[in-house]
């Protein structure tokens, strides 16, 4: 298989397979988690404004008072790479073209130089949070193979994408094929690893907000 054939497979069969596993995996995992249900709370509720599941879904994106100072890298690094990933994934014109090709949906892209810059910042932030994970006793203690593997699964698409655009290290075709393959790997593993928090984070915040909102506590 030469690089062109590899790219063709990655763009065709590979992508179909990965997207299928991703979609079915996400549906399966959501059912597996949320069909467990929960018991109705029979205690008399106390209504307080601002205390509900929906409030917590949004409010929890803001750090509680004093926490940024306690763990600045977690918050600043975390915000930077999450926002960075969103910008790179959804703001890069060729990505929008791909989505348009599949679904017909389209939106204006961001200037490629800006996306370029964001990609570098995102990778830098990810390296910083990785170093923090290795350095901070609590993070190191909690970390398992999965934490490092999912870091790599997230980092590789950004790195290969950026290298492809820069025409660095490997010929463009090969690097683009590697980029697509790394995205496919990410899609395949996302539903079955901690990366699934991308979906469950909303459910978790909602449950926390609802259970405590029942008590009139805005969490």
């Amino acid at each position: 298989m030469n690089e062109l054939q590899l790219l063709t497979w990655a763009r065709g069969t590979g992508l179909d397979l990965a997207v299928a596993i991703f979609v079915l995996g996400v549906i399966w995992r959501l059912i597996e988690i949320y069909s467990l249900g929960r018991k109705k709370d029979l205690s008399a509720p106390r209504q307080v404004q601002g205390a509900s599941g929906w409030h917590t879904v949004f409010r929890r994106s803001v750090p509680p008072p004093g926490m940024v100072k306690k763990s600045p890298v977690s918050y600043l690094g975390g915000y930077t790479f999450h926002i960075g990933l969103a910008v790179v994934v959804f703001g890069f014109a060729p990505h929008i073209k791909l989505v348009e090709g599949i679904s017909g949906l389209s939106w204006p892209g961001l200037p490629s130089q800006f996306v370029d810059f964001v990609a570098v910042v995102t990778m830098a932030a990810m390296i910083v949070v990785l170093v923090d994970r290795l350095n901070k006793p609590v993070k190191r203690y909690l970390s398992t193979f999965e934490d490092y593997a999912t870091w790599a699964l997230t980092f590789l698409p950004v790195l290969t994408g950026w290298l492809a655009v820069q025409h660095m290290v490997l010929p463009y075709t090969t690097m683009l094929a590697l980029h697509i393959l790394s995205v496919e790997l990410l899609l395949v593993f996302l539903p079955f690893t901690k990366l699934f928090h991308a979906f469950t984070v909303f459910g978790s915040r909602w449950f926390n907000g609802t259970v405590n909102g029942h008590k009139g506590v805005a969490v």
Partner: protein
Amino acid sequence: MSASLDKGVRVLKEVIDAPIASYFNSCVHCGLCAEACLFYTETGDPKYTPIHKLEPLRRLYEQEYTLLGRAKKALGLSKPVTDAELAEWQELVYNSCTLCGRCSVVCPVGNDIVYMVRKFREGMSASGNAPEGIKGAANRTVTLGSPMGVKLPAVKAQMRHVEDDTGIPIPLDVEGAEYMVMLSSMEIINFPEYLGAIAKIMQQAGKTWTLCSTAFEATNAGMQIGNSDLARVIVSRIVDGAERLKVKTVISPECGHAYTALRWEGANLVGRPFTFEVKHIIEVLGEFQAAGLLKTEGKETDRLTFHDPCQLARRGGVIQQQRSLMNQVAANFVEMPDAGFMNWCCGGGGGASAIEEGEELRLEAFKKKKSQLDAVKPDRLVTACANCRIVLEEGLEHYQMDIPVIGLTEMIAEHIPEQGA
């Protein structure tokens, strides 16, 4: 697998629900919950990271309720939960967790970690891994009526003392009273002034109230240990008493976990909504204050600060009332850093204070309270939980800090003018 482990695992499988599944799937091991836990911040030991305290429950969830986990288990690739592991986790689930809930309000993905610890305790208790101290307290509550072994004659003796001191009759088993007042053993034995305070406050407010001979103890060690069966027996007594006396409202005493057990867990334990309301004494005082039924004279002039019991404030939503009450009787009320919703636990809630072998760790964790107090240097410390009060007194004595601790209800009552004066 031993019979007790088997039972514990069965109970754990039952308590795992959609919130728990969602929480475990959301954790990204960021470790921020550690920064919210005084057992970590004061020891620096990462094993006290709140989410880590749930590791056996997480593995069991994965092995029983996820496709991949079940496949791994079938292939013998997963690590089963063992007796030895649960025994090791006792310190993490009980001694070093007071169910204070700070972790649950800082987790960026929204995990209610303390909700999970509470559920995990069900399995720990069923598998025989609850600490002896809380087990004893729970058994005494079920067999004798209170965790400290206080029986009705002791309550009656206390009632007589209070009647002699205040000249106000203490009603017992009065049908149709508006309020049924609950006590904690700690108040019966160590802080009898609470009952006297209630008598004065109710008299001034012109409210009818009563104690109940079959349900005077509010604390619920069954809940703390994580045994819903015992917790149900204890709560049922209160429900039966309140319904027999046809009271409108049951007043939970100055005890945080008693409030949680009765106000939020009670109806779920007995399996039906209550026919009466449950309020913490501070909520009732807040209502009296708002209705102009709490008339006080004079103010304390020394420097006072308030320790928020976790179950009252962060887990119970009662935050403003105590401040407003403090301001009515204190001229020099100062707030500690992090006071209110984010207040730090005394270190002994959720049954932790009943665990003898946890004392050293408890005192270590108390350094957090010490630093809060050092920041404002109060002359006295006010709180609204008899258990916090005992734990605070122990900690203050250990660190040779001369700060008396008082209950808010009794301080309010001291400012109520004598009837007819």
